């Protein structure tokens, strides 16, 4: 029996399915991310778990308890909204204490718990401020503290970092994970930012058009995306058109226009397939030494790495080159490209594209 179980939950708006047969079992203490482009139904899913949107079908179980039709106050889940939704007319301490008041916790006990949780999010000194007197990052931590102070069994986060600037976002990402680990709370986070999902989750749920398309650990998801959409949405990818000869042990893949063939363990359907390979798994070398030869068409310096594009007979390939040693060859130069065939993934062409 898993801790939180979402079974076949759907939400229809008229004939349109915003969420279609969503099923997921969450273990106690897990950090799950719902990842997908906007409009994929991830926020609707979260709101159904929170009780703010009524599912059209399916059940949601907390252990043995069916919470599908319970109103939000009786679910006792912690929710952090994208806009933080702090109460503007209350101080930080009053905001955080609200949930305890609703639970009729005695004043002394309330004060103690508010103090403890504010210490956890490093906001003890600002307890008497109003939300409008605080920065975005601070407000966000108030929202997290307010959701956590009631000791909810599950914490739901709706795009918690999207309103922060880039630097703060990265910092808060790890802060979020730290708090989650300290409290040991089961967490579901909605995000459209793949790096956020990869860096702090135990498992990532990818959603497209209301459906789950892959559930995996971040590493598996990145290394073995199930379809071309995921491989380009989660990280960057090069796609090469290829043909597959199926045989007993797997398939022989021939990359178009190049004469390159290799044995793949993947068994995509059909003859026409896509080979995809991550930019960081390609290496530049001398023109004659690579598996394929190309000409550099663009070269961008990103600080920690270079992003080089090379035109090859198989198409234009992006290569990520660590900023280590001399800069890569300039535009117009001939280069060779090297990779390990094991790093290539073969997917049915055009699937879900």
């Amino acid at each position: 029996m898993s801790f939180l179980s979402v079974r076949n939950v759907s939400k229809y708006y008229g004939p349109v399915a915003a969420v279609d047969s969503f099923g997921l079992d969450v273990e106690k203490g897990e950090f799950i991310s719902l990842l997908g482009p906007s409009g994929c139904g991830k926020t609707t899913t979260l709101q159904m778990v929170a009780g703010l949107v009524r599912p059209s079908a399916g059940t949601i179980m907390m252990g043995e308890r069916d919470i599908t039709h319970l109103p939000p106050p009786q679910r006792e889940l912690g929710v952090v909204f994208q806009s933080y939704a702090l109460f503007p007319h209350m101080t930080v301490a009053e905001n955080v204490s609200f949930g305890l008041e609703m639970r009729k916790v005695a004043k002394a006990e309330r004060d103690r718990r508010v103090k403890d949780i504010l210490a956890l999010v490093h906001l003890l000194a600002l307890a008497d401020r109003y939300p409008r007197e605080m920065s975005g990052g601070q407000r966000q931590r108030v929202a997290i503290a307010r959701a956590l102070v009631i000791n909810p069994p599950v914490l739901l986060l709706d795009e918690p970092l999207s309103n922060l600037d880039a630097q703060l976002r990265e910092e808060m990402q790890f802060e979020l994970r730290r708090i989650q680990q300290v409290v040991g709370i089961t967490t579901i986070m909605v995000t459209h930012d793949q790096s956020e999902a990869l860096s702090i989750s135990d498992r990532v749920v990818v959603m497209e058009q209301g459906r789950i398309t892959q559930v995996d650990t971040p590493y598996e998801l990145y290394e073995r995306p199930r379809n071309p959409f995921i491989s380009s949405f989660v990280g960057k990818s090069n796609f090469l058109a290829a043909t597959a000869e199926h045989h007993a042990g797997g398939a022989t893949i021939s990359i178009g226009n190049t004469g390159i063939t290799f044995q793949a363990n993947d068994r995509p359907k059909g003859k026409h397939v896509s080979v995809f390979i991550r930019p960081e798994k390609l290496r530049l070398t001398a023109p004659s030494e690579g598996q394929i030869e190309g000409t550099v068409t663009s070269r961008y310096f990103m600080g920690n790495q270079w992003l080089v594009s090379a035109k090859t007979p198989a198409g234009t390939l992006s290569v990520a080159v660590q900023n280590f040693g001399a800069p890569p060859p300039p535009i117009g130069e001939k280069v060779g490209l090297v990779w390990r065939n094991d790093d290539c993934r073969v997917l049915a062409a055009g699937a879900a594209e």
Partner: protein
Amino acid sequence: MQRNGPVALIFHSLVVAFMLAPMVVVCLVAFTPENTLTMPWNSLSLRWFEAVFEHADFMASFWNSVRLALLSATISTFLAVPAALAITRYEFRGRDALNALFLSPLIIPHLVLGVAFLRLFSLMGATGSFAWLVATHAIVVSPYTLRLILASLTSMDRNAENAARTLGAGEWTVFCRITMPLLLPGISGGWLLAFINSFDELTMSIFVTSPSTVTLPVRMYMYASESIDPMMAAVSALMIAVATVTMIVLDRMFGLDRLLVGKG
């Protein structure tokens, strides 16, 4: 902030002067010791203010107007809060009609309203009742309360209410602890506009007041149509003073910018 050029500055000063001059003149004339409407160049006197306070009819009308404005503004606020909640949050048949109905007193000339109410009240045999006068004023000022409450409702983050729900608050608690406090600027701003509009209303009131319920503007109108003496200026000065003090109090309490312009 960009500074105004000299031409713009002169223009703005003229507009402000044009708006304020009549009020300043009225207030100055109120202090004249003479029997006619003249500027008090030589000496100041409070005799016309005394005259107002000793004039029983004026004082009765003043208190009448205060009671009327308090009651009608409060009643219209009590009607406007649920109406605004319904209009912004629910889809129902006749929603637009309800919205239009609440705004219609702004569009229908008060003269027409006055005649219509007069006719209605005489048919009902209710002419001259203070309760019905309050009802007519509540109707006439409701557009102001509804508009301001609607404005603060639409600009409100509804997730604050959702957050309260997830923290364990029932619907009634959410309304009292979250919705109402967040609506307070709209409610008090609407109430204030309603109060002032009711206190000022003349056109319709001429038709629906009776000798026992004459309001201050109607009393002034009746008095002024017979004779003009500096007592009228004194009454006007007092009305301006009441409005100014109300505004200052509200500004100190909530900030007028926030109430009327909706600045956070």
